[in-house]
């Protein structure tokens, strides 16, 4: 029973990516081409990476570059390749009590939220953090770091840790009239139900969100490396990259994911800064 099951590929991915529905479109194509069935397991970023480290998945698709690099260094995964990217946005109540609307410098915007929150002024807005070690949460921490701050729910009344997925966090922020950091995909999907939140800060290169595919190292046990490699190649293929770029574009009026198959993060960042 310890043979490799050649017929199935376990893909561990993050909830926010799975919630976009993109993979539900791509997987059947791969399946019909290769005859390998793809089991898309959507979990928290941490759990997805952990599944890779334990050899409980064949291939990973996540958006937490620093944590991913750690896996590469550990030898848990044999490859890590950029597939696509999009961006994060700081959203908040339309009346914007901290006055950050339109700012380009995300670090400055965050500092302003902190100052405003700490002032304790009447009607002061809070910041709702994912607080779940997801890719988005890690990005948020990095941004606070860039702002020279490290807020915590224990010391800062205005800082709330929701500890749930993106849509739940957006719902909480919506109810509480709080600011939060969200990936654009989830925000767009939910935008009709979270009328109390509008995009306030976007466009900073530091807000880029990179999705990478990783093949789990074949030394981890019964890894279907062959299918994993095939899936990686599949994602990078031109026609598939084009599909990724077109996904839901008609609906939202802009690309949800911008294809970047095989590129490096710095190159993408460079290009974005240039735009």
């Amino acid at each position, binding site marked *: *029973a310890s043979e490799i099951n050649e017929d199935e590929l376990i893909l561990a991915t993050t909830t926010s990516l799975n919630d976009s529905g993109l993979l539900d479109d791509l997987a059947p194509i791969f399946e019909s081409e290769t005859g390998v069935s793809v089991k*898309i397991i959507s979990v928290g970023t941490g759990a997805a990476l952990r599944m890779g480290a334990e050899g409980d998945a064949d291939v990973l698709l996540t958006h937490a570059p620093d944590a991913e690099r750690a896996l590469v260094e550990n030898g848990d995964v044999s490859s890590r390749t950029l597939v696509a990217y999009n961006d994060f946005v700081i959203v908040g109540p339309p009346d914007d009590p901290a006055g950050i609307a339109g700012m380009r410098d995300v670090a400055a915007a965050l500092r302003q939220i902190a100052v405003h929150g700490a002032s304790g002024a009447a009607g002061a807005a809070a910041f709702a953090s994912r607080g779940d070690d997801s890719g988005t949460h890690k990005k948020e921490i990095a941004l606070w770091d860039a702002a020279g701050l490290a807020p915590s729910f224990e010391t800062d009344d205005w800082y709330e840790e929701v500890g749930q997925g993106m849509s739940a966090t957006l719902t909480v922020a919506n109810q509480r009239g709080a600011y939060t950091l969200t990936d654009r995909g989830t925000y767009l999907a939910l935008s009709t*139900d979270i009328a109390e939140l509008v995009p306030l800060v976007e466009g900073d290169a530091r807000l880029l969100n990179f999705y990478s595919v990783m093949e789990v190292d074949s030394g981890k046990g019964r890894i279907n490396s062959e299918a994993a490699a095939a899936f990686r190649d599949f994602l990078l293929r031109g026609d598939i990259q084009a599909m990724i770029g077109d996904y839901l574009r008609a609906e939202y009026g802009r690309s949800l994911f911008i294809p970047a198959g095989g590129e490096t993060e710095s190159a993408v960042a460079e290009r974005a800064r240039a735009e």
Partner: protein
Amino acid sequence: MELIWDGIREAARLWWAGDAQIIEITLRTLAISSAATALALVVGIPLGAVLALRRFWGRGLLVASVNTGMGMPPVVIGLLVALVLWRSGPLGGLDQIYTPTAMVIAQLLLSLPMVVGFSLASIQSINPRLIGQMWAMGANRWQVLWLLIRETRLGLLAAVMAGFGGAISEVGASLQVGGNLAGETRVLTTAMVLETGRGNFEVAIALGVVLVVLAFAVNLILTAVQQRRFIT
């Protein structure tokens, strides 16, 4: 609040249109939860009877464990089953993770304590002399069990309904061990979570409506059985 109405309308629409996917998901839900409940009954009722009727060392602890089992969070059970069935786990070689079988196992573990606990309580509340009479009539072990089930069907059916209700409404464990794979392990609750995450609240509510209607239908039948022969 209109969300709910939208959801109900959506549920009616989906069902009316004979939406293949929702029918498939509903049938799968029913199959998995029924299987889990049936297994829980087959294992749980005799276990409850033994705990009710026999006195042995460690019985008290066992009873407390069963009762604790009723408070076992689905996520814990899901995690434990996953740890066992994952590739890296002791039974990983069976390749049963992310299959309906894994979901049946998790739901079984969830509803078993409920069935054992309530069988125990129901059987214990039978007049012990009546149980003596059953033996005296020449019943063997299995016949006594059958008669006990007959006598306590009121309580046992409540247990069945609680067990089935627990199984069908559970989501944490099903997600963890089933993986919510479309066409394979997606059931009503996991589909609801997915749709909620996707912001399709109407669809989520529609699925919830289907689930509630399903549970209601099953329980209506069971309640009719339960209350049928009850006489003032």
